[in-house]
């Protein structure tokens, strides 16, 4: 799966958790999930679970801890998908 496809799928996942979906219109790989998209920090575990289901992968806790931006998530997912 190419990076752009993963990125687009990530936006769809994040759409479920941001309080303001309009913020996704200008999102880039550098967009911070908590600070820029105003996702409640408690919901990050839900985002991870959704990613696991969507991409058929497992994200370990220490890997999840390193995700700050959408690009961070895309990179981890791309590595796991091979």
């Amino acid at each position, binding site marked *: 799966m190419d990076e752009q496809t993963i990125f687009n799928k990530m936006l769809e996942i994040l759409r*479920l*958790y*941001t*309080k*303001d979906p309009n913020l996704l219109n200008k999102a880039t790989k550098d967009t911070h999930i908590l600070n820029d998209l*105003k996702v409640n920090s*408690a*919901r*990050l*575990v*839900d985002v991870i*679970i959704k990613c696991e289901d969507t991409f058929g992968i497992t994200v370990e806790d220490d890997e999840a801890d390193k995700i700050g931006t959408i690009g961070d998530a895309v990179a981890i997912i791309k590595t796991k998908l091979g």
Partner: protein
Amino acid sequence: MGVVAPNAHGINNFEEALREGRSGIRFIPELKELNFACLIGGVPQDFENVRKTYFDDETLMSMNDNIGYAAVSAVDAWRDAGFSVPDPHDDYVDWDTGVIVGSGIGGMDTITNILVPMVTQGKVRRMGSRIVEQVMNSATSASIAGLLALGNQATSNSSACSTGNEAIIDAMWRIRMGLAKRMLAGGSEGPSPFIWAGFDAMRVICRKFNEQPEAASRPMSATASGFVPGSGAAVLVLEDLESALERGAKIYAEILGGAVNCGGHRMGGSITAPNPEGVKRCIRAAVSDAGIAPAEIDAINGHLTATFADPYEVKNWATALECSPKDFPYINSTKSLVGHCLGATGAIESVAVVLQLYKKFLHPSINCEDLHPEIAEFENKVPHKCLDYPELRTIAKAGFGFGDVNSCLIFKTWNNNQRSY
């Protein structure tokens, strides 16, 4: 005020349902599949669609039925009180307003549908972040405080079937003490079979009217055969009179006073039955707190659940108010229309009381044309049809719950000319 009841959502619809004597009791197929003896219940209708018109998908994911009913009721009450729902991105906090909304049992659907299955299957890691906020005892008040940006006390009380009344009384005291200008107060309860199962097992809920759901809730009837389980929520906005007058708020009624107590599980009382002395003391304490004479009470909205206890309750009222059947106030049971909504019942019925005071009527107490013989002398005091009552001024509302707990509120019609301070 806001109400999500089995027979109506919203105060206008609820008033109409009360006047018509419309029952919200329906056959519940799931109860039949689960081998319940009672196959009927009161569940707010079409609520899944209703709540989608109030909240976005992200918010709804954190709302089980208990929270959903409470949140919709709170938003309706807030708007009805003349306020608007704040923007979630706005940092304004209303430090003068708090919330006390409780439940009898609470977020059982989250526990049974998600928590227990996932934990027992070893899937804790995949449960997600929304369990605690939906099963904590303060789930309803926490949700409402966030939706409305409330900065005063936010808590959830619990006293079984007395919960809704108790919340209103606690909120009244917080305002009386000058600790809040206004409080949202009420109760909520979801419709889970896992809440109702324990009552079914105790044989205290109705099992003889499964073929006639609308005739099943029969408070004060000779053929009453147990309460009909119900669900829903209601929230009232209580406000300091000065503050309400200052901002020109619509005032539905005045809370003159209230009282709560416990019978101590003695003198005939137990975990499941009221000590009659406790009931009478509670009623008298509420009347005393209200500063009125018992004879000033025009009507009673009883606890009256459709169990063996109804005749005792009527007699306890007569003793407490020191009146004979002849000079006894009118008495009706909102549960005849909506069933027994447990932790929500006091709040839903208090909304019914206030609407009756505001619009000067008494709703019919249905399904008791065959009044229980022990209270035959009170026949003329039970409205079987909607009663227009222009002189109606004061209604006493009581609630009694497991744990031998009691609550009583005294509501009075508000007249804009009665006070000028």
